[in-house]
């Protein structure tokens, strides 16, 4: 816990130095991470969020059919995806893909004394290695989430039109009407926090890694576990706050 706060403090200081242009950041890592989040994760995010949209439509249809209100599937899928589900699914996927790789990369650097070598050079490892990764995820997770929103809605659309025989125009109108701008913001808040959570748990576990191959394995596992647990807790907190604020 103390190491977490120390780490966050260092990250904040680094961010301050970044804004004032004094930080020594490795931007190549930023570009590589952006690319890995984008191109490489696209397929998986598409697949998973589309399937989640489909599942929602199926499950919802069974209940709503009893009331002859099947068209409200559009509302359910739209709201659920945009508000939380797209962000949570993307967050979980990226914890496994990117969070784990951060922990492994930094863990191996720790084991190889690469991080020591940065310290003796007077370069903050947090600034040089962690900052670009955190920034990249902070930017990429919302973008991926918006894309996942779309995929989820398309998934719901396919089931509703193809299998339940709903009217496509009516479905689209319902979706547009149901997904309010505020839900997009709520989704954005989720994805921004998840971006931070994934990057920080991955990097923290990596930097604090014990110097052995077993240590690197442990760091990787615990990075993923920490990220997913924190994502669920953060979702609960954000949902609770929204409830209080009445949105």
């Amino acid at each position, binding site marked *: 816990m103390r190491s977490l706060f120390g780490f966050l403090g260092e990250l904040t200081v680094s961010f301050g130095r970044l804004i004032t242009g004094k930080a*020594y950041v*490795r931007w*190549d*890592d930023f570009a590589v991470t952006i690319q890995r989040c984008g191109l490489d994760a696209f397929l998986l995010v598409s697949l998973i969020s589309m399937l989640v949209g489909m599942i929602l439509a199926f499950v919802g249809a069974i209940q709503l059919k009893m009331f002859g209100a099947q068209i409200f599937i559009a509302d359910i899928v739209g709201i659920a995806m945009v508000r939380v589900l797209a962000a949570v699914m993307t967050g979980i996927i990226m914890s496994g893909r990117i969070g784990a790789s951060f922990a492994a990369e930094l863990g*191996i*650097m720790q084991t*190889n*004394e*690469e991080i*020591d*070598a*940065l*310290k*003796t*050079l*007077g*370069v903050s490892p947090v600034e040089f290695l962690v900052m670009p990764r955190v920034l990249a995820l902070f930017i990429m997770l919302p973008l991926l989430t918006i894309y996942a929103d779309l995929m989820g809605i398309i998934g719901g659309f396919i089931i509703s039109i193809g299998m339940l025989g709903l009217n496509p125009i009516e479905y689209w109108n319902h979706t547009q009407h149901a997904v309010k701008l505020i839900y997009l913001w709520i989704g954005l808040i989720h994805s921004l926090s998840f971006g931070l959570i994934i990057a920080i748990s991955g990097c923290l576990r990596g930097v604090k890694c014990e110097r052995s191959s077993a240590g690197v394995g442990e760091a990787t596992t615990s990075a993923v576990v920490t990220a997913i647990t924190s994502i669920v807790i953060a979702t609960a907190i954000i949902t609770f706050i929204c409830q209080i604020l009445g949105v």
Partner: protein
Amino acid sequence: MDSVLDPVIEVSNLDLGYADYIVMRNISFSVRKNDIFVVMGASGCGKSTLLKALIGLNQPLKGEVLYNGKNFWDTDEAEQQNITRRFGVLYQGGALWSSLTLGENVALPLQIYSNLSSIQIREVVALKLSLVGLAGYEDFYPSEISGGMRKRAGLARAIALDPDIIFFDEPSAGLDPVNARMLDDLIIQLRDVLGATIIVVTHELASIFSIADNSIFLDAESKTMIAAGNPNDLLADSRDPRVIRFLTRGAKHPNL
């Protein structure tokens, strides 16, 4: 004015360890300017641990490390950085930054601390790499070269900024005899040309006898230093069987 005889590094009553595990107790020595100072001892006795306390990575449990009279572990971070900026460190495993090419590895310290243009930096990088026998390897990644080459590339990086004090952790481990000899010559050359003070952790006897001006001997069992002085003198004069056994590869059993 610094006199040549003034110690650059003074270590007194140092206790080293991790958490509550004590590795070494009561280490005291001083390193004169322009000396090649050797830290020797059996594997696992705590040589790297001592080095880490000297370069500011692991705080010692007790005792003082003075650089030109300044107590390193008792000053603020800015002052510590002023001190470490004059260091060059070759880590036991090379510790090259794996996502950077050899050229970028050597260039990074220059980019941070020198005012050289990128063309000048490229020239310095080429020079330092050729000095360690790696001319033309600028674009290789650490994963693409051998362990011994990594060690030498690490050395090129350590001397990139022409440091005042250079720390070597087992520089010749993993090198063939010819390259090991070349490295010894390079270390002496660095001392003579750069005027650097050099601290070498090693248990290569040939290297110890040919380069060391002064040395200390760490013993794992008693967890402290059991001898200090020029290794040739130690071999001639020491009455301690542990020291003699080490310096003669276990061959000679002095009857005491």
